[in-house]
Structure formats: C-alpha cells, structure tokens
C-alpha cells in the first residue's frame, strides 16, 4: 500500500431525523488498492457512499480525495474529481445502446453522431487496456446483467474515474460472472485504479480486497488488512456477536410428495415460455430450495404453485389433489384453505399493503375467515389480539401493530408476514426470497424458523437468489435456468461451483464429466 490516500474521510457524520446514519466515520483508502467496506443492511454503507459520490452532503466531517479537501454538491463534482460509482441498481437507460449510455452527460459535441464517433475512438483504447469487449451498439435491455455491469464500469472509466466505488456489485451476478468481476477488479488495481468494494458477502471481501473497513450502526468498528483477518472475524465484527451459520437439521424419512409438479409449462406476462417442462416434488419434512439467477422462471414457478398464474400444460397436485392443469386452475383462496401458505417474493408488491397498518396486514388473505369477520364486519378486537400475539411471538419491533407496515424495517415486515402465514398451520409453505432486504439478525431467526417448520414435518418450497442461504437451509436444491430445471441435487453434493454451472445452463452430466477430466 502506498503512502498517498485516494480517499480519506475524517469524522464524517450524517443524520436523518433522529437516526445517525453515519456517526463519525473515518476511512482511509490507499491509492491503487482494493478496499472493502462491509456491514449489515442498514449499517450506513449506502449513506457513506452517497456522501462520497455527492448524492448527500455530510452534516459534519471532511472528505479528502487524493489528499485534497473536497465538498461535493452533486455527482458531477465527484466525477470531475475522478470518483466514479457503479450503483447497485444500474444507472442505465435501457432502450439506449451501450455507447449512448456511456456518453450520456459526457458528450463531446452537441451533435450526437460526432459525439458517438469521438467516444468510439476513445473507447477502443480503454477497452483494450481493461480487457473489455462490449457490444457498443446493442441496446442495454438486450444484455445480460453481468454485461450491463461491465458497461457501467466502462462508463465510469470513460468519464475519467480514478476511484471506482462498487456498491454491492455481486448481488445480481451468477458465480461465473462474479469471477469475471473479481478478475476485472484485479486488472483495475494493476492499472493503478483504486477500488472501493462494498458488500455484505464476506468471502468476496476475502477474495478481492487488500484492506477492509467494517461498519456497524453508522460507526467504524474495525480496520483490517485482508490478509490478517478471516470471514469468521469479520462476521463477528459486523454483527457484534458470534454468528452460527450452520442450522441444526434433523434427518427425515421418505414421505409422499406434498406438492408435485409434472411437466409444467407456463408463459410469462409477455406470453413467452417462462417454465419449460418443470417437474418437481416437495415432500413433507423437507426444504426444497430453488436456485437460479433472477428472472429465469423462479417468479413464474412461485406463481403457478400458488394459483396466481395458469399453466399451459402439465399438472400440479397438492396433498394428492390435482390443482392445476391446462384446463383447471385453483384460486389462491382455495389453495390457502387446503393448507398452502405463501410468503411472497416481492413483499411490498404482493406480500403486504404498505400504507395499511400491520394489524390490518395480518389478516390479508384470511379476511374471509370466520375468526376475523362476522357477516362482513371485521372483528377488530380479535384482530388486535391476534396482532399483539404475532408481534410477541415473532419479536417484531417496534411493538406497535397500529403503525403502517411500510414504516417497519424489511426484517420486521417479513416477521409479520411469516407470522401471518404460519398461523393457520399450513401443510406446505411457499417462500420467495425469505430474507431479501432483511437485516442479518432477523436472517438467523427466519432461517431457524424455516428449519423448525421443516422439522415439524411441513413441506417447504423456498426460492432464493442467495446461494449461501439455500445451502444453509435446504435439504435439496433445484437449479433453474431459462425456465428449465437444470438439476436437482441433495445439499450435501451442492457447492457453489456446481450450482454456478447449473445456473448458467449446464447439466449435472457435464458437471460430473468436468470433474472427472
């Protein structure tokens, strides 16, 4: 590590109302290094980044770039100082080509064609230097996520970034795309760029960074050289307590399939095939995890199982009854009454009504049940009692069911949803993204709960974008790619490499073939 600091912050603070999002953060990022920032969701990482990139102005404290004091008022200031950011949600205009996206805001001429040609020339050199090979004239909406991310990085470099901030860069990538990203990060460092790598995935920190700063509750709790720390230590520092990722699991005997999909085909909203000959069984007392890169049919799978989407062919049976074929659909209410519970993948869209109170949300989907309603009139007292019970048993905070559900944190919203769904003692739980947007403390609790339900003999179908999560809680993992199940394997045989190959469309046969080579 060289002596010059690319970025330094001194006692940087930012408040939102009563919340100290950043409380005296001092950060030193050496020039030409890859610096990791880890912390849980809500620890203050995003706030810090947004101050470094000029999206927020700090309440107090200093930011120094290349040793000079700066005060960024907007992102343009930051870019002028050579600070570029790759946001977690890409800042790309989808119908525009890669080239148009790259020049947006940095056009060299008011005539578009001239600006494009200038950029094209400049990009040849950049692409060669950093090993890019992007389809410059392809609209971004046609590109895979990993390619879009590279377009974002190239955009930052084109705009003169010396310091690149990568915000949760791997959240949407396949394991193979992650590897490519790590290679690129190394190359960037070799070429003298400074990279700030922000994540909550610890093995990525270990794999890519030189130094790491751990943030908890808006404060820096530790600085380490990556070579002198470990995943375990970082996890402990992040959460502030020992975390046990292993989940106690009891073995189970073979039972009849609770849910069974046979050669199911279904279309997405655009009328394209989204599920292709999907066959799956979920047994009582097992967790079947569904892995895959987002958008490969997982959403449609959840929808056909829970009665939200019809199927074009094949059949689905639940508890021995056929509930869906090309001519039969069973509506979600009936399925719920038959003992299916659904924790929706997109919580705010389908799981809760954001502007209604938590109390009202606990009866969603069950509002016709006689213990909640009598002749069309809600039994408010009983509902309030139930809500209080749920809040107690799930440890929802703040413990006030009268607040709007939207004002709770993601983790607490999810606790409310889970409480609602398990209250009727379902036989099958269909869970989409159990811990998306949930803080790490609540993650552990939710994982424990899934395992408890499984141990109690429930059938569990869990779709998750987080491989670590699936590896921790599943008995078997099925992998989806482009609407097909590319492989189902017991968790003992699953590792990230195998899953990654399946996620990219490989089959179990060529996975084993590769291993034999």
């Amino acid at each position, binding site marked *: 590590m060289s002596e010059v600091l690319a970025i330094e912050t001194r006692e940087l603070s930012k408040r939102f109302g009563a919340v100290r999002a950043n409380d005296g953060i001092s950060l030193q990022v050496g020039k030409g290094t890859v610096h990791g920032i880890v912390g849980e969701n809500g620890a203050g990482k995003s706030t810090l980044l947004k101050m470094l990139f000029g999206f927020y102005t700090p309440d107090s404290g200093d930011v120094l770039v290349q040793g000079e004091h700066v005060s960024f008022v907007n992102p343009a200031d930051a*870019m002028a100082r050579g600070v570029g950011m790759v946001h977690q949600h890409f800042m790309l205009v989808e119908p525009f080509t890669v080239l148009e996206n790259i020049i947006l805001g940095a056009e060299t001429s008011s005539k578009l064609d001239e600006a494009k040609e200038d950029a094209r020339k400049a990009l040849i050199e950049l692409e060669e230097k950093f090993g890019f090979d992007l389809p410059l004239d392809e609209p971004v909406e046609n590109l895979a996520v990993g390619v879009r991310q590279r377009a974002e990085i190239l955009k930052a470099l084109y705009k003169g970034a010396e310091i690149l901030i990568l915000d949760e860069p791997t959240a949407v990538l396949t394991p193979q795309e992650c590897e490519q990203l790590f290679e690129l990060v190394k190359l960037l460092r070799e070429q003298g760029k400074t990279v700030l790598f922000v994540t909550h995935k610890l093995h990525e920190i270990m794999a890519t960074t030189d130094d790491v700063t751990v943030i908890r509750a808006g404060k820096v709790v530790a600085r380490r050289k990556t070579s002198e720390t470990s995943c375990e230590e970082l996890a402990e520092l992040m959460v502030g307590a020992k975390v046990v990722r292993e989940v106690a699991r009891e073995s189970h005997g073979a039972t009849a399939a609770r849910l069974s999909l046979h050669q199911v085909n279904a279309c997405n909203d*655009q009328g394209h095939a989204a599920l292709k000959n999907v066959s799956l069984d979920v047994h009582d007392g097992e967790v079947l995890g569904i892995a895959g890169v987002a958008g490969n049919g997982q959403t449609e799978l959840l929808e056909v199982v829970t009665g939200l989407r019809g199927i074009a062919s094949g059949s689905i049976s639940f508890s021995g009854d056929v509930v869906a074929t090309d001519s039969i659909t069973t509506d979600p209410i009936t399925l719920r009454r038959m003992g299916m519970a659904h924790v929706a993948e997109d919580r705010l869209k389908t799981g809760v009504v954001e502007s209604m109170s938590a109390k009202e949300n606990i009866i969603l989907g069950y509002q016709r049940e006689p213990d909640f309603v009598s002749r069309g009139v809600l039994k408010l007292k009983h509902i309030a009692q139930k809500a209080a019970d749920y809040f107690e048993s799930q440890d929802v905070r703040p413990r006030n069911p009268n607040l709007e559900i939207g004002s709770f944190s993601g983790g607490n919203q999810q606790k409310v949803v889970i409480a609602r769904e398990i209250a009727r003692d379902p036989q099958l739980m269909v869970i989409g993204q159990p811990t998306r947007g949930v803080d790490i403390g609540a993650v552990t609790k939710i994982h424990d709960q899934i395992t408890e339900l499984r141990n109690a003999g429930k059938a569990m179908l869990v779709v998750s974008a987080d491989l670590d999560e699936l590896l921790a809680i599943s008995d078997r993992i099925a992998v989806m790619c482009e609407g097909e199940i590319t492989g189902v394997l017991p968790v003992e045989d699953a590792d990230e490499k195998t899953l990654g190959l399946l996620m990219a469309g490989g089959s179990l046969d060529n996975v084993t073939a590769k291993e034999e080579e």
Partner: protein
Amino acid sequence: MEFFADLVLLTDSTFRIATPLVLTALAGLVCERGGVVDIGLEGKMLASAFAAAASAAVTGSPWAGMAAGIGASILLALLHGYVSISQRGNQIVSGMAINIAVAGLAPTLANFWFQKGGQTPLLGDEARFSTITFPFAESLADVPVIGALYSEILSGHNIITYMTIVIVPLVAWMLYKTRFGLRLRAVGENPEAVDTAGISVTLLRYQAMVIAGVLCGLAGTVLSTGLGAGFIRDMSAGKGYLALAAMIFGKWKPVPTLLACLLFGFVDALQGRLQGVALPLIGEIPVQFTIMLPYVLTVIILAGFVGKIQAPRASGIPYEKDH
C-alpha cells in the same frame, strides 16, 4: 374524374385539419419523452387560440397573434411544469385543471373584453394567416392531374401548415441527432441515470415544457387565425386528446405520430364530405354519426390495433432524489 377531384379535395382538407393535430401531438411527444405526461394539451391549445385571436383582433397583425398564442401556451406549460416537476404533483390532475380552467376562463375573458358572447371579433383577412397561393397555381389549375395536385394540395395553405412540414423533421432531428435529444430521451426513461451523470433533471424537463408550449401555441394560433377567423368557445373540440391518442398510436416517435395525425385528419375530412351525401344501400347517414367517426376510430385503434407499446418508462412519475 369526379372521384379524383374528391380525393384531391379530401387530401387538401386532411392537411388543413391535421396541422393543429400534428403540432399538438409533437408537443405531447416532447413532454412525455422528457418524462412529463401532458394531458393539458387541450387547454394550452385553447388558451393560445384565444390569446392569438384576441391579440390579432386588437393589433390587426396575425404575427402579434402568434406571439401572444405562443406566450400564453408557454405560461401554462411552465405552470404545469411547476406543479409536476418542482412540486412533484400529480401530472394528470395538473393537466386536467389547466383544461378545465381554460375552458371557462377563455370565453369569460373574451366576453369581458369584446362583449360578443364569449367570442372574439371576426378577424379580417389582414389579421389572419390566410392561404398562400404558389406562383402559377391559378393558371396551372386546369392542367389535368398535375395542376390539381399543385394548386390544390401543395399550394393554398396557411404559413403555419408549411411551418409544420418543417417542424416534424426538426423535432425528429432534435430527438435523435442532438445531445439535447439524447438527454431528453434519457430523462424520460431513467431520470436517476441522468442525475448521476451530472445533468439536471429539472432543467431538462422545464426545457421540454417550453418546447411543448411553443408547439401547442402554434397549434392554437392556427386554429383561430389560420383555419378559423376568431376565437369561438370550445373551438379545440377535443383535438388535444385526439393528439394525445395520435402520439400513443405513433409510439412516441415523430414520423409515426405524423402519420397517425394524418389518418385522424383524413377521417375528419371524410366525415365532412360524407355529411348529407346519400351513400348506396345505406342512404344518408345522420350527421351525428359522421361527426363521431374520428372519435370512434380513436377508440378502435387504441383498443385493438396498436399492440404492445412501451411508453417512456419514467413518464408521469415525478423524480424524487432519494429512492
């Protein structure tokens, strides 16, 4: 030969009728490409029709009328901008408010100033944009085919119609061939990307408002000082909404939008020709039905023939920084 003559006349009126439609549809297009839905086109058109007629009546100059028409329209566009860009209000409500306010305000002001029952005085030829006759148009009129095409279709329109012919490619060029156009299209798709690229979302959207104001102003001006000879209550007669429909039918692209406007203009011209004409088998169609034609067509086209269309993704959504 009679059929040919009919066709020439129809084409001629199509151009005339389509002129305010095209201008208004382009105004809507620029607005929505920039991410602001403008359902207030109708009100802006009506306001500028009134302002243009009033100013032309007082000064006796159609150009003063045009200036006033454009001015009024820009003011309303900026008001819509203030509500929907600066205050992040609901764009539909703001647009409807403008439409309703103008529908009442214009005749009231007309009555106050001119005491003619909500109209402006009839404009003399010198205060209007009268038709321009091309050289030799009259002498060539009798030459078969070519003469009719030249003197009826090419010649004999008002200046704003000819301006519109230039404005369509100009808007297309601006949208697709300039830096401003790139940024404008970007801000209607993903304002966050524009913001992080260091460009002001607010300024871009206000610029779009002003352009829309100018185009709508021209449309209103041609209504009252070109096609008509003075302001009449409700003279825009839903053309603002029709233009919005044409813009959607044209998929937010200038040339398809132009074609959609021409189609609407043609049907409107056709209904004019059909009034009082006895058709074979059907007989004479009651005038109420022929007048419905353009609107029925709008419903049919938008309901069935447009197919899957993608509006600018950020259109109608106020931009708030922290999301």
